């Protein structure tokens, strides 16, 4: 109980601190006081601090949509990872590892290439369709005699990730379209150039996916007990898996359309909070959401500031930080309750 409370406080405080830090730090440094004053100004609160026009432009038009987009992308990827882990009963469930992010990137790139400049919403729509197709491919390959084979699932994911990355690279190089962002953006991830419009679209689609998951939480718990056992207890397993994977497609599709492929979030966020909260999905869901947001907000802060004047790719930062963190989590988990089996 005490550990649980500390976790929620840490997540909340972390999110708040990272919000302010992301708004304050960068090539053009703004003090936290002026950051708060800009925010206050926009909700009609005069805090008596002098703010310049450029303070306002940087905080409100550039950094705020970007940090919020980081939070939404991270939240979506964190919950998507948790949901994939439950739907496939596999601790290695993660959008990038399973090729779902690759599918989403392919869909988004294709959509932008085909619809062209007219498509403000083309990328998320394509991303969701691409993610859904990747999930469909995964299930048809890895499900055999009514169960999901653990090794086959991961192997199929590795193949999907490789193929989709190649396709994305090819399209990005071949197609001449100003709207289409570069191959490094899609394959390594980035949040540069985030706009309010992009934030709203992404938030809408991610929220639609997240909203499904609380309805499934108790059933996802039972699914971890076993598909057979869940069915014995009255769960319509097919329906729950379909809903869970549908929600995953929405969350991953929108997140990748906005930020490209950002790995490890869906692995690190759920596993880190699971170590404290246990595997019950009712609580795990919101903690994975917060931890995912926290992770990507922190990673983007590093991506923006570590290599000024250029930016490090976001996916590179999440991998460099997330990889070792995940290895440590694996060791710790193993010591606590044995192997994954």
């Amino acid at each position, binding site marked *: 109980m005490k550990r649980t409370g500390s976790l929620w406080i840490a997540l909340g405080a972390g999110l708040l601190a990272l919000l302010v830090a992301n708004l304050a730090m960068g090539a053009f440094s703004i003090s936290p006081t002026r950051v708060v004053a800009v925010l206050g100004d926009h909700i009609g609160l005069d805090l008596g601090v002098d703010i310049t026009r450029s303070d306002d432009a940087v905080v409100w038009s550039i950094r705020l949509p970007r940090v919020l987009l980081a939070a939404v992308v991270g939240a979506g990827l964190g919950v998507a990872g948790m949901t994939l882990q439950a739907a496939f*009963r*596999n601790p290695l469930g993660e959008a990038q590892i399973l090729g779902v992010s690759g599918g989403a990137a392919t869909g988004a790139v294709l959509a932008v290439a085909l619809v062209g400049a007219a498509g403000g919403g083309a990328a998320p729509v394509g991303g969701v369709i691409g993610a859904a197709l990747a999930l469909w491919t995964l299930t048809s390959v890895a499900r055999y005699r009514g169960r999901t084979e653990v090794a086959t699932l991961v192997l199929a994911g590795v193949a999907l990730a490789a193929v989709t990355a190649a396709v994305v690279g090819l399209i990005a190089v071949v197609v001449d379209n100003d709207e289409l962002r570069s191959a490094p953006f899609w394959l390594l991830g980035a949040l540069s150039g985030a706009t309010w419009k992009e934030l709203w679209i992404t938030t809408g689609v991610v929220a639609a996916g997240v909203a499904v998951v609380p309805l499934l939480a108790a059933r996802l718990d039972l699914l971890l007990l*076993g598909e057979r056992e869940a*069915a014995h*207890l*009255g769960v319509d397993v097919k329906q729950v898996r379909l809903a869970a994977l549908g929600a995953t497609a929405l969350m991953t599709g929108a997140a990748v359309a906005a930020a490209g492929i950002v790995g490890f979030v869906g692995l690190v966020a759920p596993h880190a909070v*699971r170590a404290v909260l246990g595997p019950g999905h009712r609580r795990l869901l919101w903690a994975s959401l917060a931890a995912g947001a926290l992770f990507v907000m922190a990673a983007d802060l590093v991506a923006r500031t570590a290599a000024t004047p250029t930016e490090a790719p976001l996916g590179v930062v999440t991998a460099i930080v997330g990889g070792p963190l995940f290895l440590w989590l694996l060791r710790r988990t193993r010591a606590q309750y*044995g192997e994954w*089996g």
Partner: protein
Amino acid sequence: MTALLDLGGVSYGVAARGLVNDLTLGVDPGEIVTLVGPNGAGKTTTVRLVSGEVEAQGGTIRLGGGEIGSLNALEAARRRAVLPQQTTVRFPFLARDIVAMGRFPLDTDRETDFEACRAMMRRTDTTHLAESFYPVLSGGEQARVNLARVLVQEAPLIVLDEPVSAMDVRHELLVMRLLREAADDGAGCLVVLHDLNLAAANADRIALMHEGRLVAVGSVEEVLDAGLLSEVYQQPLSVIPHPERDGLLVLVRDG
């Protein structure tokens, strides 16, 4: 009285191999029916048919009077609980979390659920395991936790596939005692057992399967015939009166 389970001429096979042929068997409230037979006799397939994991290719299966195909998962779960041979969990649920999952099909409030789980953990000798991670428990401990999960489901029909195979002799008897208490409360139990003596000591009726068919069903005295058993198990067996109480003992005969 409606039978809790009614199998009428049920058949199921895979790739032209009949795993269960023309099986007719019922379970009534208050009785323990043990299902015995050599490996490959069709016992586990019968459990899978009753639990809805596979669909019968012929015949009818009724749970509490309702055709199994016409019940949705939740309705079926309120009529029968199933204990599979083994349940592997890769995520760190506590033993008490696993037990609590048994309450999922019921519409009772949290307080009732909590009390039911606590009482059943005491009865299954798992209270001391409540705060342990399920994946690190021994096979016998996991089996008892799962038994508690199945019993808190409070289904009228309880189907158990080799519930004692991982247990020591004390817990073996504990399980059979719990099933008898459930039967006394009006439940019906269909129990797959390997140990013929355990079956003999605890069954109201024994059903003996061989090569997918039911070769005998009835009281312990009717079914435990030395000649029949020796033929079915392809092993000379003797049946003698129990030296200390009513009942029969099955012994392996040499040669």
